[in-house]
């Protein structure tokens, strides 16, 4: 994987000036995710009404990859139902593991497709997937 593909403008923008970073006033679901081996540590905040994720944000610290991945994920799930969000998580993780055979599905990941080849950098996979695992936790706990 080329640095060109990794540290794109999109990813740098999301990692350094994310509009999704900060606290939400009315969060009713928060979930912390961390990656002990590299120290990435994020907290997702969600405002859920019924089945719908109305708003989302995150706080915490980590590398550009983990920060950008979190921010891009949040853009994607805002306004989605929990089920849809869960489906997005599955799709993202399959993509990373290169187990996604149905290429049409890639499209629904929108900007998150930027991490498509992170599997070629095994040391960074955990950075890219942290937010998504954390979201899955949050959704499962709040069924």
């Amino acid at each position, binding site marked *: 994987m080329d*640095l060109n593909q990794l540290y794109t403008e999109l990813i740098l923008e999301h990692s350094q000036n994310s509009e999704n970073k900060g606290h939400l006033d009315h969060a009713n679901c928060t979930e912390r995710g961390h990656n002990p081996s590299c120290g990435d540590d994020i907290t997702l905040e969600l405002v859920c009404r019924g089945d719908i994720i109305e708003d989302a944000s995150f706080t915490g610290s980590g*590398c*550009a990859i983990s920060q950008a991945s979190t921010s891009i994920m949040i853009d994607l799930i805002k306004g989605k139902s929990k089920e849809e969000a869960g489906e997005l998580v599955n799709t993202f993780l399959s993509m990373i593991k290169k187990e996604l055979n149905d290429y049409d599905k890639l499209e629904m990941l929108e900007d998150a497709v930027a991490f498509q080849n992170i599997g070629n950098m095994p040391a960074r996979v955990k950075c890219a997937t942290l937010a998504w695992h954390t979201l899955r936790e949050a959704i499962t706990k709040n069924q």
Partner: protein
Amino acid sequence: MKSFDVDRIREDFPTLSQLVRGKALVYLDNAATTHKPIQVIDSIRDYYNKSNANPHRGAHHLGVLATEMYEKARDKVREFINARSSKEVIFTKNATESLNLLAYSYGMKHVKKGDEIVICISEHHSNIVPWQKIARLKDAELKYLYLNDDYRLDMEEVYRKITDRTKIVSIAQMSNVLGTVYPIKEIVKYGHSKGAIVIVDGAQSIPHMKVDVRDMDADFLVFSGHKMLAPMGIGVLYGKEEILESMDPFLMGGDMIEYVEEQNTTFAELPHRFEAGTPNVEGAVGLAAAIDYLNKIGLDKINKYEEELTAYALEKLMGIPQVKIYGPKDLEDRGSVISFELEGCHPHDVSTIVDTYGVALRAGHHCAQPLMKFLKAPATSRVSFYFYNTKSEIDQLIDSLLKVRKWLGYGS
């Protein structure tokens, strides 16, 4: 540097001449593990081709050879650290096992309720977690020595923390994060004056400087072969004979016994009592070859050369305005490990980016999470040198660091 021919030395290390993604490898992760010279790699091959056997158990030719090579390696280690007797040299698999052996066999036996164990905030996890266990099981207190603003340890802190209740002081001679070299001799002396035994974690010091256990008067010294040119899977525990004699066995099985009856066992003499199972003769032989290699060059020359590299690297790094060094900024009592932060750039991104330029450095907590918390840094970047590194490699490091900022979208 007349007598120190680094180009010549690099020829002994085939790994160093490889290309990584088309770029020459610049390996600056020596505090994690070092590469091996052909002399060590050949010693392994020769051992397996000519003398492999299970030692101590065979009267046949190869068994005798393997035993001899294993015991000669032990004696070489003894000489290297200037121990009195080779009974005091126990082979383990790494420094971590050596420290755990001490926790289980010394700590479990001699630490009592209300006692104290004193370590430094910069310890490696291997010198923290075993003591947490002993402290918890024995209802003892685990106390930390903290560092001053200069990332050094004041003796006042030592005087404050080590008390008459202190049973064990365990401290790394050199920090694997900060590069600080601690005043071990004074600490040992003060620890002894309070009745404590003192364990020295030499994992980072032994590869780079002459360590004399009799001179420093440490009760125990631990280190790993793989950080000093030797193969993986071999480590050392040095201990004063009379203290080793007072300890319970740790791992139990073949070779460490005298008589085994159905319900009872008597144990072998030192050093075998602490070496259960088939030993790693290959590792010991490789360690001996590594010591020969280091001796041939001379630890004093190695030390001097590494000091030059460190000075050069510190100067160059501090020349980058966005760099913050975690560790002493001058050469006094510091080794060739340098941790730093590049403002606005997370260490993992730094490491990914410089890797594409062939530069191997380490990012993260370096197995020293309590120190990271103390430093208020979730992670740092770390470079660590060995005597096969060069100034031009440091130049490459600096170049690649400047590129990191570009990649991450900062003006240069």
